């Protein structure tokens, strides 16, 4: 199959395994393109993309923008802090105004879970979810799984532990969906207070001991503590969290096998991940960033192919 089964990328939940395989295969070629002397292709030169960021973002926004520019799309950027949203405009009005400028694809980050699903039902453009509240962050999960595939050649059968704030993390949820669809074994690790209630329904079990989790896994995807989404205190202090759930080099060196460390960024050095671990040979954090551009190029290319002239 050479076409996506979906018209938008709203979440990994809505994708078939064949969609993920197609995105990876396409990303393989884009990875070569972005390592060429000239890193730009003309594929999307007749496409206009709006990046709507209703929530702060650095690397996702840069990564999407770079991917769009490398595909030769026209790009317009919008961030809510400098817009009419602060004057009381609704999401639908904001987006419809932008679409009146003949936009073909909308890449949106929004603090409300389900915002991109809502948008896809109400407007006539392809939607790419760049993170919606605590719901999903599909391109992050795709690039994470792609980085595992790149490192090990295969994702099926690999053991991956996601460490940290699972409750508030859209990266965790999308990662669980994606890795499971690809046949990996997924477990999570962190304080019980930061675990969602429905872990069983996702087919995922929980380690409360970090060392035990690291002994088990091939890959540890370490997440940031999302203080901005926490309305109450879920653990006594960051210092205590770092002592119990912080991954450091000493711990990695004490394991019987070499494991891979991933982090979606931004890292809080010294909290979930120590500097010596983040900068060690175990970490593939910068590979994740490079792969992010290739994955986003693949997603945009495949969705653009569905916009008929």
């Amino acid at each position, binding site marked *: *199959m*050479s*076409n996506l089964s979906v018209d938008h990328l709203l979440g990994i939940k809505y994708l078939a395994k064949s969609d993920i395989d*197609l995105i990876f*295969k*396409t990303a*393989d*070629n*884009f990875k*070569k*393109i972005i390592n*060429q*002397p*000239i*890193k*730009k*292709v*003309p*594929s*999307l030169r*007749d496409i206009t993309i709006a990046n709507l960021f209703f929530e702060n973002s650095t690397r996702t926004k840069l990564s999407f923008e770079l991917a769009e520019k490398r*595909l030769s799309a026209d790009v317009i950027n919008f961030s809510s802090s400098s817009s009419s949203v602060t004057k009381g405009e609704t999401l639908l009005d904001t987006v419809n105004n932008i679409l009146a400028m003949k936009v073909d694809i909308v890449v949106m980050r929004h603090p409300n879970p389900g915002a991109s699903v809502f948008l896809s039902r109400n407007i006539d453009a392809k939607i790419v979810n760049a993170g919606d509240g605590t719901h999903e962050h599909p391109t992050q999960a795709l690039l994470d799984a792609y980085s595992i595939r790149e490192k090990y050649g295969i994702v099926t059968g690999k053991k991956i532990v996601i460490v940290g704030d699972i409750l508030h993390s859209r990266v965790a949820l999308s990662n669980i969906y994606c890795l499971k669809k690809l046949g990996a074994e997924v477990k999570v690790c962190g304080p019980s207070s930061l675990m969602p209630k429905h872990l069983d329904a996702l087919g995922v079990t929980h380690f409360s001991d970090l060392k035990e989790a690291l002994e088990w896994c091939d890959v540890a995807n370490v997440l940031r503590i999302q203080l901005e989404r926490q309305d109450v205190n879920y653990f006594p202090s960051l210092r205590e969290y770092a002592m119990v759930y912080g991954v450091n080099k000493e711990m990695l060196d004490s394991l019987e096998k070499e494991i891979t460390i991933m982090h979606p960024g931004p890292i809080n050095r010294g909290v979930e991940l120590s500097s010596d671990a983040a900068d060690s040979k175990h970490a593939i954090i910068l590979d994740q960033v490079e792969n992010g551009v290739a994955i986003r190029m693949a997603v945009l*290319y*495949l969705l*653009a*192919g569905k*916009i*008929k*002239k």
Partner: protein
Amino acid sequence: MIEERQILNQKDIQITIERLCQQLIEHHGDFKNTVIVGVQPRGTFLSNRIIIKLKQLLNTTNLESGSLDISFYRDDLRMREEPIVPEIMDMNLSLEGKNVVLIDDVLFTGRSIRSAIDALMAFGRPKSVELLTLIDRRFSRDLPIQPNYVGRIIDALDSEKVIVEWKEVNGRDRILMVKSD
């Protein structure tokens, strides 16, 4: 009804490739500053054959070559039912200042070659680019693109298809003209 006519058989193809190689040597001498680039997917079958023959004729093992994927440089992404699935891009070389011989099996509308020339430029500024094709459907061009080296010129209607079969994928080498009502 489907009507099938063989244009070239295995022997014809072999002779044609040999003649094309002699013409290439006439123009490129020892190939010191020349790179052979096959257009993916089907041009690479022909370019592989040409490279093997050239190595024999020149008595060398040293010939620079690459396989060029043109998927992302095409102009019809949004006109197709399904997006083109990209092929392997194998271009671990610089084309800066090089003479490039671009190879494809059939020259039809010229649009693939237009995309290929665009794709080539991502690997440096070549000194020159020439085009070699096994079949030239001379009356079907959409763009002003002509080959420098041609295996066989064919006059075909738009409704007729030219199919190139290679031993590597189809079990034998032959070229067919297929006409369907």
